[in-house]
């Protein structure tokens, strides 16, 4: 679903990750599951794209990974949002809203483009 090279969708994945970790420490699998369940499986994360995205965000300093122990007593890497990441999230969420609204507005429009027809 999230094609790797698609910048638009990659940006969307990053936004979803930031949102997913904003509640508190969560591991990669948890992030994938969260995206799937909250979007009612509309957006299915390709696991192969999720992890590089996580590392990219970590490198940007927006999220931070720390090793911890999972519910079933396994070592797992938990991600949290950094202050810098939180500011990003706020900014990207409002950006997304503007974009979504603009696109919605456009697809619902009844005006033809100038010169058409």
């Amino acid at each position: 679903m999230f094609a790797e090279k698609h910048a638009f969708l990659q940006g969307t994945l990053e936004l979803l990750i930031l949102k997913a970790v904003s509640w508190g420490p969560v591991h990669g699998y948890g992030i994938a599951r969260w995206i799937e369940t909250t979007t009612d499986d509309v957006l299915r994360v390709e696991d192969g794209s999720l992890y590089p995205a996580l590392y990219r965000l970590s490198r940007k300093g927006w999220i931070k990974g720390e090793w911890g122990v999972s519910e079933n007593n396994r070592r797992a890497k938990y991600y949290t949002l950094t202050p810098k990441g939180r500011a990003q999230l706020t900014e990207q969420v409002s950006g997304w809203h503007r974009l979504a609204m603009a696109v919605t507005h456009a697809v619902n429009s009844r005006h033809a483009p100038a010169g058409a027809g």
Partner: protein
Amino acid sequence: MNGKGRSVKGRLFSGKPEREVGEELEFHIEERVREFMAAGMDAESARRAALERIGDLERVRNECSELLEAERRSLARRDWFGDLLQDLRFTLRAARRAPLFTLVAVITLALGIGANSAVFGVVKSVLLDALPYGEPDRLVRVSATFDSGPALTGALSAGTVHDIQERQRSFSAVGASSSGGPDAVLNADDVATTVRLAHVSPDFFRALGVSPVLGRGFDEADTATDTSQVAILSHAVWQQHFAGDRNILGRTIQLNGLARTVVGVLPRDFIHPVRRSDVYMPLNLAPVLQDPVSARGSHFIEVVGRLDRGVALEAAHAEMVALGADLSAEHPRENRGIGLQAQRLHTTMAGETRTPLLVLMASAGLVLLITCANLAAALLSRTIARRKEFAVRVSLGAGRGRVTRQLLSESVLLAAVGGAAGLLVAHLGVAALSGANIEALPDYAELSLDGGAVVFTFALALLTGVLFGLSPALTAGRAEPQAVLRDESPGSSGSRGSSRTRGILVAAQVALCLSVLAGAGLLTRSLLLMASQPLGFEVGEALSFNVPLSNASHPDASSRILFNDEMSERIGSLPGVTAVAVTNFLPTRVQNSNSVNVVDGPPSTDDATPFILTTGVSEDYFSTLGIPLVAGRLFTTADEINAQPVAVVSQAMARHFWPGGDPVGARIRVGPNPESTPLEVIGVVGDVRSSLAETEPQPMLYMSLRQGWWGNRFIVRTAGDPLDHVNAIRAELAAYDPTLPMAQVTTLRDVVDEALAARRLPMLLMLSFGGLALVLVCVGIYAMFANMALAREREFGVRMALGSSRGAVATLVLRQGALWMAVGLGAGALGVIGVGRALESLVFGIAPLDPLSILAAVGALIVCAALALAVPVVRATRADPVVSMR
């Protein structure tokens, strides 16, 4: 230091990126498998489905690992840089708080590091830099070794050179040169100047791997003609006398009155490997080889060889030694006692400068070590004074490593500033050295501080900073914050351990200083001895100059004698001139030696024919120079070319050949030709030192210039400053013959001084290093005991309150001082032995462990140390019991 190991997080992070990513992905897959199995899949298909969701697992893992690694790298960089900035801030703050300490430390470091980089600059240009030849590492000089005689020259005979060229297998090219001949007169644009001439074989430049920048080198055809018609100019002559004329090739120049065609110009940096030469002409050995006597009897050719690929110097040397032995066997009369050797060309060109330079480098290193010990002790005291600051920082959460690192950064930064200032000191030093135009350094050495020396300086500064900062930094890092913060006493000076460290540092300084001082003492005493030993002639006020006569204008002995007589008379009649003599070599600079055999005398005790320094002189030579006649008579004008050949010998020569007997009337044969007419010894004169480096005069043989020994070097004894008479003499010479130049004008005093200059320089440097070391050590001793006295002030006060006398308290301080001094002197004794051994070849006339020099060094050290001790001791005895007890 990077982000690793700084916190728990860091430590958990520290696994390899691949493993960490692998573990994370594995966890993910297991969770997926669990999810799918819960949805009813069997284990195998669940795992397959989970892997499908990942896609290309290998690619994902690699991409993630790379990202993680990049993240860690930038994190480490950021941490390191952040810490550095913090260290810098702390350092500046610390420096502002103790400006005097910082200033003194920087000056000390600048002197210590500057001395090192200046000496290194010289060492690098003389010993390390490549020679201006192609592949200079493969170049060797082949020279003769003499079993006896003064061995002033390692030149070879034409026959030997021919045999080397025929038989050798070690070299890809063998070049021959003769550079020791008389100077030539070059007439260019109506100006006559003297130039140094070298005759070289066609292979000479090829062997050196040098090609002319203009024109060509010599080829076989150039040497085939009887008289050489062509010449190659050095870059300097081309620039100075021909204004760098690009059309110089093919131009005719006048050398000694004969026309030569210029066929080439050498590169700017080219230098003759044996003797700086200005004009090069082809060397033709064929006529010499045909002369039965001089073929193997005259040694005047220098040989350079280029080692063939894969041939080691040792192999070439072994081959030459074997060849030398063969030649001695084949030509027992001429080659007995003469061997061959091959040395790296660089070694022979660096010559006698090598040992003094290495000694100076080592001394500068010792001074820097003293600087380090000194600053280490000072920093230790400061660290102890600042220990509260560190304790607070540690208890506020700064890691111990962080405190250690901060202190180390402080000392390294201090050293870096010191190094920068040291570079300035070195620059000034090297500029002074090259300004002094020291004859002692080889011609090829261009003195300057290049990139290599700058890198060396800063590497040295870094090392210095770590060296003197390490011990204080570790001490500070080890401190227990609670103990330090609880301890309220104002002056207690740290632990017993740190006071012992400081004691050791002082003892080390004393030991190092003693070594440097002993070295300086040895060189000084040796030089004083050289300078104060009677020369055997009177220096006084005397001018010397040379008039190079060309074969064209003065082809034979009689024309030269006529010139000498007429010029002597003209100069002698000038006002202020009291005596005039002519010779071919100035005293102390005789460079000519001949084999001497006594005719009908007892066979000489050793196998080889001795080589004796030989000078041709005019009748007035001995009286002009004040050399006394001991027996017989001196030369007269009657001893001319057709009369019985006569000789005057020195006392040392008389002792050598006629021990206990009378040499006057004896007959000797000079030179290799057994058929030559023997000379009759007519007189014995006082000894003249042949070299200022030797205190014992060598045997010396004098011949009359009238009997075929050519020389036109005038010695003019004057009233008042000899240089005041130069113009009058020049005018007289010009009036006699305007084409004749007056060359190598100098005074006898300068001749003597110059001979000592080569030794004065290392001595002066050594003395200044010694002085610097002494000052540093005194500061170190003072600082240590001032500190100790301050720390124990309360104790001393109590002692005096309880009835101790001031003397007893002083003894207490002194005893501790004397202990460390004694330890230092003991260790220094070992250093002195090492220095004595290192200086063995530089010290003349005294034993390498000359007691007087060493006692002087110890005495100077003890006196200065006592002065440095006195202040703290006096302060200790002034401790006021009342103030202390309060």
